């Protein structure tokens, strides 16, 4: 009896405490939610290597940096060409070996320090001094030195002519930092948010690696007013978890990345909208020109005839990607459907057969295609099964599929694989960044053995072209030659996708080929 009374007393006390806690909780919880009503809650599966721009070369870090820092030239929404930002303009000398930028006056960093040419020189010099293992410094490989003239003029002296230097200024290597705060030879730690200052639309107020980045508007921002009360980015390791968080309303929007199936499911979910804009991510099949059977141009061209682009786009990616007929994606200046013109817009078995017969190639040609399950998303398996199905159905090829984890795969590529899957996300949205890294003898990173004196000459002419028209002419020549030689077969171009709840507005206007999510232009109701 005594024990029973004690138990009842404890239960009553516990219930009372819980009730009080619940009341206090609901009251306390509602307060911060109201005060942060216009803060945009974003989710992403991207990761951040480093916030300091001299120490990262990945999209997740870039997305954080673009909120905090500015370039001399930036891409306003909808623009495909670099436009004045911290600079009022940049002009080249006749030889395209020196670019001089005139700087905007009266700009301040978020800590109140004035922005001058010393910051420009400091920012570029420290990228090359630190030489961070992220490899970001490789973007400045053509930079000889930076000189200043007064507080508002800086000149970039290049090692070789480069007409696309303004595009380099818009990359992660070109973010401008405060020379009074950032050390010349080492990075600022991610968690030292007080020292991570820039001139961009937001200030970083809290950063928990792998979990959360919190931004509040920068009152010293020199651009047009930020349209929301701040941004909180939550990092997810799995898209399925992010999808649930979006459906529950834990986050307002998600930018990068869901699986094709998840995008389709979200598109059908009431109260959630999938926004689609022009994208510049591409996927392609690299063919080793030194290894059999793809060392035979006829075999490569036959594969180009048979690539099932439309089936991949519709069956595997639910039309969230579009067929691609050149390494340069549609929407960028200079793009041409070179593969479509050379091999047709749809698979053509008859022409592939005739080509192989003429070259005396015995069919079916045994070929091994490599792909990776751990870098380009879950749909990669289906993508390559579809390619295998199409090639086998032609009876001209007998395809064996092999896969390897990314860590192994990325180290191997053309050194051992005869034909393999790769994807590309550009450093800057220009045709040049879709040509030189693949077709230049010295700059080809795929190790597929492709080398062409003719292509090298075209790429050199493109880099040094004095007018845009001349440059785009060389870009077209490169694409035509690339289609003819076919060391790489491009097959799809991804869209830029973002998913949001109805309380977020302005997303459509920021989805363009520059692939920048301009959070400062979004509103939350």
């Amino acid at each position, binding site marked *: 009896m005594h024990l029973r009374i004690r138990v009842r007393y404890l239960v009553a006390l516990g219930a009372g405490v819980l009730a009080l*806690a619940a009341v*206090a*909780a*609901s*009251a*306390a*919880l509602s*307060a*911060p*939610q109201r005060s*942060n009503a216009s*803060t945009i809650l974003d989710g992403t599966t991207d*990761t951040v*290597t*480093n916030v300091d721009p001299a120490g990262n*070369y*990945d999209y997740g870090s870039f997305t954080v940096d673009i909120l905090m820092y500015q370039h001399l030239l930036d891409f306003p929404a909808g623009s495909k060409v670099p436009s004045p930002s911290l600079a009022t303009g940049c002009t080249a000398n006749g030889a395209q070996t020196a670019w001089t930028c005139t700087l905007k006056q009266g700009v301040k960093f978020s800590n109140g320090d004035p922005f001058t040419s010393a910051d420009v020189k400091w920012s570029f010099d420290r990228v090359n001094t630190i*030489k961070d*293992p*992220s*490899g970001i410094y*490789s973007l400045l490989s053509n930079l000889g030195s930076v000189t200043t003239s007064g507080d508002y003029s800086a000149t970039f002296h290049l090692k070789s002519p480069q007409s696309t230097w303004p595009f380099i200024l818009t990359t992660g290597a070109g973010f401008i930092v405060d020379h009074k705060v950032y050390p010349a030879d080492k990075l600022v*730690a*991610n*968690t030292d948010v007080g020292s991570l200052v820039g001139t961009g639309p937001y200030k970083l*107020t809290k950063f*928990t*690696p*792998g*979990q*959360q980045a919190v931004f509040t508007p920068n009152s010293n921002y020199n651009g047009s007013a930020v349209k929301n009360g701040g941004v*909180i980015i*939550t990092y*997810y*390791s*799995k898209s399925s*978890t*992010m999808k*649930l*968080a979006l*459906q*529950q309303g*834990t*986050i307002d929007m998600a930018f990068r990345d869901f699986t094709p199936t998840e995008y389709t499911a979200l598109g059908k979910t009431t109260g959630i909208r999938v926004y689609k804009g022009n994208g510049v991510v591409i996927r392609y099949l690299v063919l080793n020109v030194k290894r059999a059977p793809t060392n035979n141009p006829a075999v490569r061209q036959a594969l180009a005839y048979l690539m099932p682009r439309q089936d991949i786009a519709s069956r595997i990616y639910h039309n969230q990607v579009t067929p691609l007929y050149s390494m340069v994606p549609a929407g960028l200046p200079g793009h041409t459907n070179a593969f479509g013109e050379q091999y047709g817009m749809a698979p053509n078995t008859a022409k592939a057969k005739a080509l192989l017969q003429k070259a005396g190639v015995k069919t079916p040609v045994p070929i091994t295609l490599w792909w990776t399950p*751990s870098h380009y998303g879950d749909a990669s398996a289906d993508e390559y099964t579809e390619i295998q199905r199409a090639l086998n159905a032609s009876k001209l090829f007998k395809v064996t599929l092999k896969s390897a*984890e*990314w*860590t*192994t*795969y*990325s*180290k*191997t*590529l053309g050194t051992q694989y005869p034909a393999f899957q790769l994807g*590309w*996300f550009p450093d800057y949205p220009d045709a040049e960044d879709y040509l030189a*890294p693949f077709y230049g003898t*010295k700059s*080809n*990173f795929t190790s597929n053995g492709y080398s062409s004196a003719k292509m090298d000459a075209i790429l050199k002419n493109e880099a040094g072209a004095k007018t845009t028209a001349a440059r785009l002419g060389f870009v077209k020549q490169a694409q035509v030659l690339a289609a003819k030689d076919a060391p790489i077969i491009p097959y799809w171009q991804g869209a830029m996708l973002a998913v949001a709840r109805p309380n977020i507005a302005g997303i459509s206007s920021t989805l363009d080929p520059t692939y920048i999510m301009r959070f400062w232009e979004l509103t939350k109701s």
Partner: protein
Amino acid sequence: MGVQGSSLKRYAITRLALVIPMLFILLTLVFVLMRVAPGNPVSASLGGHVPPAVIKQISHQLGYDKPLYTQYGHYMWDVVRGNFGTTISDRRSVGSIILVNGAATLELTFFAVIVALVVGLVVGLLAGRYRDSPIDAGGRLFGIVVYATPVFFLGLLAQLVFGVWLNWLPTSDQASPITQALLKTHTNIFFVDAIIDGNWGALWDVTKHLILPATTLGLVYGGVFIRLIRINVIRTLKEDYIEAARARGINERSVVYRHAFKNALVPVVTVIGLQLALLLGGAILTETTFNWPGLGHELYIYLQNRDYAAVQGIVVLFGLVVVLASIVIDFVNAFIDPRVRY
């Protein structure tokens, strides 16, 4: 007692001394396994994007092109000096990972153990007390099902039912974004930080976020307790002193709860320690399922990135925790059960 105290002391010293060679072996094993696996952090992050020459240059810069024994020597020398290194993929010191993410794992596993104990005790006791009844059958079935179900599947099921269908509980993270942004960091254990701040709104939010992951992990862990406690209760109820208690006219409730049950609990203490490895293994999957930023979640990501320093640090910490916990359990056993000898 004097003899037991002396043997326990000797045993403790021996066990603690063995931790050092154990750590050495573990460090060496993890080091070798990570290095023999193909690829390195540089090729994992930059491969397929920059020319091989750049990858080679950065690998050289980080010393990955040096002979394995040289890398091993450098690593062990750093470890001896208490430096477990810095990650390549996000430039964090292993110490800060252990501090920040370890706190999240501690929070999750602590509450998971509470769930496991509550479930294990209640179901195990009832099943043992009402042996061969429908309660027993139900309890055993429940125990087997939760123990046998993969923890990630249980987690996904919980997310689906309580998050998506019923919309009662959040399905991921330690707290909602705004709570996390506003919560001051004291211990990195959100539950404790909210209490220290007297922020009851945050405490409620954190508690809600804890329920699904802690219950998921706790249920799997609890399955072991259910079976163990049931068997112990059945065995204890057959003991002579129970019969004697009944013969003295003590009511059945007291016999069961005050005599049989208390003694049936002793082996549970041992099992808590022995099952710690299972708990930490389950934490990796639970944390990944619920985006819970603990050490298991980080290990999953760092493994994908071949981040040597982080994987080595976390695995060694897990190993150390399991070993130390088993030593502590041995001590506790010696104190609570006078029959135990070392």
